[in-house]
């Protein structure tokens, strides 16, 4: 059952490529795989944590103030992650910059809180958090891998192809757009092919 949920989070309801949520960090911090991994893990933590809490109190939060309540709960988790990073991973914290506090407005977390955690029990919400978070993290790493290799000739900070002069465009903003466009196009192509072969 968990494997099924993971598959849903990574493939079927992949937040970046299927739901088009959480795009800001997907383009802004995917210049290196280490940053992408760091952000991915942070988001998994915040998403799972807030899903669990929101699901546990879903029966007591009045409908009219639910959004501010969700935002407060999510912001609390984000602040905890930010403080933990400053204490134990300050280099990563500096690299990710304002995108750590910006996790609070990552559309994925609020969307999941609104559409899943507020309607399902704690266990299901927790698994959903992990699954969607994993999907987000893996997508980030995929984008970052392409951009770091092509744009900086590095992977995890180590040179990949000695002597290859990297294409700077992938390391700056436009490259993010192009990389995601290319990955999206590949995914669409495969999806259309599968649909056509099914007919």
């Amino acid at each position, binding site marked *: 059952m968990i494997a099924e949920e993971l598959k849903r989070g990574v493939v079927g309801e992949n937040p970046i490529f299927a739901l088009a949520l959480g795009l800001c960090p997907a383009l802004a911090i995917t210049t290196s795989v280490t940053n992408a991994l760091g952000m991915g893990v942070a988001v998994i933590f915040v998403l799972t944590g807030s899903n669990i809490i929101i699901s546990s109190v879903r029966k007591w*939060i009045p409908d009219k103030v639910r959004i501010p309540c969700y935002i*407060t709960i999510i912001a609390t988790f984000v602040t905890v992650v930010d403080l933990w990073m400053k204490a134990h991973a300050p280099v990563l914290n500096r690299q990710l910059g304002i995108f750590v506090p910006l996790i609070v407005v990552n559309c994925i977390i609020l969307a999941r809180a609104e559409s899943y955690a507020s309607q399902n029990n704690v266990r299901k919400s927790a698994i959903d958090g992990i699954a969607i978070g994993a999907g987000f993290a893996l997508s980030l790493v995929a984008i970052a891998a392409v951009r770091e290799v092509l744009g900086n000739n590095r992977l995890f900070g180590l040179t990949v192809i000695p002597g290859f002069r990297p294409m700077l465009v992938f390391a700056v903003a436009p490259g993010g757009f192009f990389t995601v466009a290319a990955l999206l196009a590949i995914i669409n192509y495969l999806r259309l092919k599968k649909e056509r072969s099914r007919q």
Partner: protein
Amino acid sequence: MSEIIKLAVALAVVCIFSGIVIAFSHSSFEQQIEAQKLREEKEAVSQVFPSGTRILDTAGSAPLPIRYWIGRKETKTIGYAFALENQGHSGIIRYIVGIDTLGRIMGMKILSQSETPGLGARIEEPASEKSLWNAFGGGVHKDGRTWFTEQFNGISVSKPLSISSAVEWPSLPDTIKMEFTGSNTVSAITGATVSTRAIVAGIEKTVPACYAAIRGAQR
């Protein structure tokens, strides 16, 4: 009316819990965050001195207008480090420069910069000789040194510096490198002359005067 009270109470309870959790995390992490800041600063300064140097922070007790450190080995002073900053291309660059007692640069460490990635940001580019293929065999080389800052080693601050916009330092043959150091020349990052000039100007406007002041105070 009662609905408003219900809504307000719900919101208030959530905020109170949030406040408690955040306050708790802050107090548990506070010490480590402070310790990290101090450790990072010490590490940055120690990188501009040769290894094994004892570093004294002269914070506040110095006659100089900027923050500086004295490096000692046994009882001898072997050098000084200065905290510099200058306006770069797209923001302030903060860096530390260490000089020996003869006024020659021993090392430079960039603390923070927000220059253009791929251009000015290359002042921090690690001189990574390790690639994916030999990293696991020989271990990962992680001392944080960069070619741009390395080329300043041996430059004298008692003479004016000059910038060459021709070939970048790593591609120069060793003989030319030695010539550059002798003639107080550094090579600019291609396409990032502003950032290069910012670093050089930052040194020139502060370090010679500070070095002279220290030598003067010693006499």
